[in-house]
Every structure is written in structure tokens, then in C-alpha cells.
């Protein structure tokens, strides 16, 4: 086959292919979808099933507005995926999940067990597992998302931004779904998740993330407040920043140390026929605030502040470990994993009764705080006579 006939055939073939093969198989435009920003999950007492509330970005908002619009939608059902699809019957459009940033779960649901609500999220291909988890300290998880009607912003995106800046406060853990599941599956580790509350000050309602929910397996068993969470994070080697307040010699909070870096080592040792865990922390800080005029070269030296801060930190970390040991028996610090890593033989012997072992575990904490700098000023503010 030569000549014009074959050339014509080639052109015809090319045209056919161009029309039929290029482009997308299941093409959909952005205005055919509702973009999900965040999800809140509650129990629905009336039907004894799950209620899902979705915060969506309103693409209909128009280009003139600087603010993006949002929509809130609630629906109940037996399984998460069922609800996710049933939403179409209300929005008329398929929900688009890859941009969802947060998932807020009510305390009630968390106490029943999280596996049943997060499995779909990590399994389905429409969703992504790098979504931040929160446990609502309020009655409902939905209330948090409902704040957007007064705040006029998309709460989910605000929360995601908050989690990105969480490293500067260090009073709540930053947990993504895959991270949470990883903790569930790792032997000798229990999970924590940040707590979210609505704080009302002077009539202004705002969401506030501080503190942590403690889990045993996938069930929530208790809470830690913001301060305790900070020391928990110290023990877990998860501190990236934040502030340590230090008292002066009379016990009045006077100094602020900005945490520049912190490293924690957990070392299991076998002493006197008993397992002991040695937690040692080394924190580098900068002295960033002095609320008095005391002379730092005199009796209140930098060294004295360092020592007081170290002793205080040591005491606080031990206190929170003791509290978790006594009240929750939840190994949120990963001590079991540390034993597993360093002493596999011993671990296999005690793995089965680890919760009990953990409760009675001997813990020793040593902390060291180093003040590296005093920010811009070399001395305290002096009062002119």
C-alpha cells in the first residue's frame, strides 16, 4: 500500500485518534464538585449512628469577594462512606476530598473507638491520610465548625494553619491520620490527639487548641491540659519550640525562656532485677523576658535561672508521666517501643502484660536547660534614679 491512499489512511487514523484518545476519561470541572475543607463527626443519639458535618468551600462565591464562601452540611448514616456519598443528595454535587485539612471527632465517639471512623479516611483513594485529627472537648464536634458563622472564615483552614504554627507553642500534639494509625499498630506505643475547645472571652467565641486526648488502643481514656501536654511532648521528644516560664527565687513567675531546640533520650536499663527507664532531656533556650530589674550578674545569675528551670522541668515531666501511669495506664511516651528497640529479649517476655508493667514502671528523669542567649539586651532594664 503506497501513495496517496496510504497517506489518506494515516491522516484519517490520526484524526480518529485525536478525537477519541486525547483528553481525560472521567473529566470533571471544579464547579461540578464541592470542595471539602474539614469534617466533624458526632454520634447521633436519635438513630444511634454517626453524624457527619462537612465544611465546604463555596466555589459559587464569585470573584469580586476577597473572602471565599463556605457552607455547612450535616447528615447521619450508618457508615462514614455511606454518609459521604449521601451528601450528594443534598449538595447535588460530588464531594471532593483531597483538600480536606482537618477531621474533628467528638469525645463521645472517641471514647467508643476511633477505628470505625478513620478507616475509610485512610483506605479510600479520594481522601488523603495527611489530615489533622482533633478531639472536641465540647459537647459536639460540629460546634467547632459552626463557629464560622460568627467568625466569617473557614474554620478548617484556620485550624490547619494553627497546626503548622503549633511548633511555637508546643501545648498540643500535631497528629495526622496516618501518624495516629501508625501509633495504633506499633506495639509499645499509645496515641494522643490534640483537644479542641471553644473559648469564650469577653463574649468573643474562638476555637482553641490546647491539651491532648489520651488513647488506649483506639479508645480515648482521658485528657491532659495544655501544660501537661507540653511536658508530655518533652518526654516524647516532640518539642520543637515554645516557652518555659521560670520563677524567681521567691517563687513568682518572672522569666520566659524561648525553647530553641530540645532533645530527649529514652534509655531502658535493667537494674536490680527491675526495668528502669531513664529519660534525659537537653533543652537549649534563649532568655527572652525578664519581668524585673534584678541584676543578672549579681545574685540572680544566668546559671541560677538555668538550674531552677532544669529542676522545674524535671519535676514537671516526672509528674505528668506519673499521672499518665497512675490514671490512664497509657504508654503515650512510647516507652514500650524503647524497650522493644533496645532489649528485644526482655520485651518479648513482658509484651503481654505491658499495660500493667507500664503502670509500675520505674522512671528516672534528668533535665538540663541551657540558656544560650539573652536576646537583644545584655542586661535587665535599669531604673534611673
Amino acid at each position, binding site marked *: 500500500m503506497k501513495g496517496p491512499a496510504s497517506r489518506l489512511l494515516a491522516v484519517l487514523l490520526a484524526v480518529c485518534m485525536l478525537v477519541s484518545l486525547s483528553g481525560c*476519561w*472521567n473529566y470533571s470541572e471544579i464547579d461540578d464538585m464541592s470542595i471539602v475543607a474539614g469534617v466533624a463527626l458526632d454520634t447521633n443519639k436519635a438513630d444511634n449512628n454517626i453524624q457527619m458535618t462537612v465544611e465546604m468551600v463555596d466555589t459559587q462565591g464569585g470573584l469580586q469577594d476577597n473572602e471565599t464562601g463556605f457552607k455547612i452540611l450535616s447528615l447521619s448514616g450508618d457508615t462514614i462512606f455511606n454518609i459521604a456519598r449521601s451528601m450528594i443528595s443534598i449538595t447535588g454535587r460530588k464531594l471532593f476530598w483531597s483538600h480536606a485539612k482537618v477531621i474533628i471527632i467528638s469525645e463521645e465517639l472517641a471514647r467508643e473507638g476511633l477505628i470505625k471512623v478513620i478507616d475509610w479516611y485512610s483506605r479510600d*483513594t*479520594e481522601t*488523603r*491520610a*495527611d489530615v489533622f485529627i482533633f478531639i472536641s472537648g465540647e459537647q459536639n464536634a460540629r460546634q467547632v465548625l459552626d463557629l464560622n458563622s460568627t467568625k466569617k472564615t473557614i474554620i478548617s483552614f484556620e485550624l490547619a494553619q494553627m497546626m*503548622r504554627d503549633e511548633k511555637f507553642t508546643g501545648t498540643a500534639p500535631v497528629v495526622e491520620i*496516618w501518624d495516629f*494509625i*501508625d501509633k495504633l*499498630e*506499633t506495639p509499645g506505643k499509645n496515641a494522643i490527639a490534640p483537644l479542641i475547645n471553644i473559648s469564650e472571652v469577653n463574649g468573643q467565641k474562638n476555637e482553641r487548641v490546647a491539651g491532648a486526648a489520651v488513647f488506649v488502643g483506639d479508645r480515648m481514656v482521658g485528657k491532659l491540659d495544655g501544660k501537661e501536654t507540653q511536658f508530655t511532648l518533652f518526654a516524647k521528644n516532640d518539642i520543637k519550640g515554645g516557652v518555659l516560664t521560670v520563677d524567681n527565687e521567691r517563687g513568682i513567675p518572672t522569666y520566659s525562656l524561648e525553647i530553641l531546640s530540645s532533645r530527649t533520650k529514652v534509655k531502658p536499663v535493667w537494674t536490680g532485677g527491675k526495668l528502669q527507664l531513664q529519660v534525659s532531656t537537653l533543652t537549649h533556650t534563649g532568655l527572652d523576658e525578664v519581668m524585673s530589674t534584678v541584676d543578672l550578674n549579681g545574685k540572680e545569675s544566668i546559671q541560677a535561672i538555668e538550674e531552677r528551670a532544669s529542676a522545674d522541668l524535671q519535676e514537671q515531666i516526672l509528674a505528668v508521666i506519673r499521672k499518665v501511669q497512675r490514671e490512664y495506664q497509657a504508654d503515650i511516651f512510647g516507652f514500650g*517501643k524503647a524497650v*522493644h*528497640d*533496645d532489649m*528485644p529479649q526482655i*520485651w518479648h517476655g513482658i509484651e503481654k502484660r505491658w499495660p500493667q508493667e507500664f503502670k509500675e514502671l520505674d522512671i528516672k528523669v534528668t533535665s538540663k536547660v541551657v540558656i544560650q542567649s539573652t536576646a537583644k539586651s545584655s542586661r535587665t532594664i535599669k531604673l534611673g534614679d
Partner: protein
Amino acid sequence: MGKEIIPAGQSISIVILFIIGSSLFMGTSGESGNSSWIALILAVLLTLPLMLIYARLHVLFPGKNLYDMLIAVFGGFIGRLFCCLYIWYTLHLGSLVLRNYGEFSKTVALTSTPMLAPMLIVGLLCIWAVNAGMEVVGRSAKFLLLFTLAVIVVVQLLSIPKFEYQHLQPLLDSGWGPVFQDMAGTFTFPFAEIVVFLGAFTVLPRKGSAVRVLISGVVIAGVIIIGVSVRNLLVLGPEILSSLYFPSYVAVSRINIGDFLTRIEGSSAIIFVTSLFIKVSLCLYVACQGIARVFKLESYRSVVLQTGLIMVCMADFIYKDITQMQYFAYHIYKIYALPFQVFIPLLLWITAEIMAHRSTGREEDVQ
């Protein structure tokens, strides 16, 4: 019939891409959790002697491929019977690999596209390449290898911030038993699958070059697979790793460089297609060579299209679903593949050595 010869560099590229083909995304057998890298090293070491045997076959039968050897050693009838077995094996292997790709695109990449569509497109591409000849496959392999290596290295570097080194501890947590199990698993899939390359030995240039091609190919591919497996382990941890069908895809999806460079897993899936293309092409080529040899055809080219379409078709119905695929790949395959990868080549080698020994005893030259 013009004889096709491809340089050693291109043959090595084919071998590397063939071996890393599907395990790049499927991962390797993972019974031993965080000690799987030991199993991988052992599997590579175990493969090397086998490669020497394969290479020795090339020296004993210069210019012949697997089917010529089988017929020369075992005679017309039994030899052809063995040939049929190998035709089945290569055809089946090609289908398995295509199906892996089909399941991959169905599960994570193109979820609403019917599985047949991506498999058919890659299948047609392979048919085209094989029809054009091994020289084309060799040249594309060399080019695609560079591309694949570049992507692997970049992804490897980008995932370093997500490494958690304590995932490697404790070493040998569950003892040597699972490690040996994994070793057997990774030995058969993917390393010893290179037995398929025996069917393309005619394309190798000189007498002794098979040693170089096979050994360096297996070692380089081994290094790549170990690198990727250790990366997946460090990023995901042994517990999560064991629950995933396509661990690399999920590991890459965790990459997040300053909230800017994220969600690159789709792009990294390209290397799956490139290596798979070479793997399926080689399987198809060898299956067609076998058919041509058994039925005394003039050229293998006359059966490429039919065989390729059968391969795609078989890939479509070979498994019921992805769980069955997973089970077959990690539990049944290591037993199923052993005769093709070890027993028959071993038998062939021993018989050939004896024959060669006898004939040199009787006369100076066989030819």
C-alpha cells in the same frame, strides 16, 4: 533472517529494568518486617550463583537461546515439551505484570477507568516494540533506565526528611524464620525471574558477555530494590508497610517539602510504567521466540500481535481481585516459579555439561 545483536550496556539496562519492574511498586515480600533488607541482601547473594549457571549455558551454547538449548539437549519431543512450559511461563509472567499495573491504576491512579484500558495501551506499545525487534527494546531500555534512575534518586533524596530510623530497630525482631521465608520470596520474585532473559540470549554479542550482563544487572537492580525497600520501611514503618498493596506510592505521598513540593506520587508512578514496559516486552519477545521455535516458524514476528493480545486478555481475567493477586504474588508464586527458574535450568546445565564432556572426550570439536 538478519541477526539482532544489542550491546552489553543495553542488555544490562534491560536486565535491570526487568528485575525492578513490578517490585518497585508492589514492594517485596514482607513477612520479616523491619529485617526485610537482610532478606533482600541474602536473595541477591543467592541469585548470583544461579546467574553464573545461566551464563555458563551461554558459553556452552553460543548463539543459541533457551529453546534451542532445550531441543538440543533433550531432543525434539521432550525438548519441545519443556519449550511449551517456558512459553506458558513467559506468557503468564507478562500477564501477571500487566495485571499488577492494571490493579495499580485501578486502585490508586485512575480509579474510574476500566482496568483493561491502561493494560491494553501498554500491551499495544509492547507489541509494537517487540515487532520492531529487540534492538528497539534495548535502545529504549537504556534511555528509560537513565530516566528511571533519575526519578528514583530524586524521590529518595526528597524522602530523607521523613525517615524515622527507629523503624529499623530492633534488628531481627521475629528471628531468622521469616527472613528466610522472605529470602525465598524475593529470590523468585523478582530476581530469578530473569530466567526469561535466557530466551533472548541470541542478542548477546560475544561468547562470555552473559556473565557481565547478568551479574552486573542483578547487582544494580538489587541495590535499587534494597534502596527503595529501606526507604519505604523508614518512611512507613513495618506495621503500616505490611498493610499496603503499593507501599512506594504511599511512601512517596508522605513527601512534603515546605508545603510546596507535595503530592508527587502521581509523577513518580511514571517509572512504574517505564520499567513495566521493558518487562512485558521481554516476556512477550521470549514467548514469541518460543512459539516460533516450537512450530518452526520463519520469524517470531508473525505471532507477536496474537500473543500480545492473548497476554492482555489473560491479564484481564487471571485474578478475581487485588487480594487474590497479592496472595498469589507472595505465597503461591515462590513455589510455582521454582521449576522454571531453578530446576529446569539446573537440569539443562548438568545434562549439557555431561554432553560437552563426553563429546570432547570422543572428538576434538562438536561442530
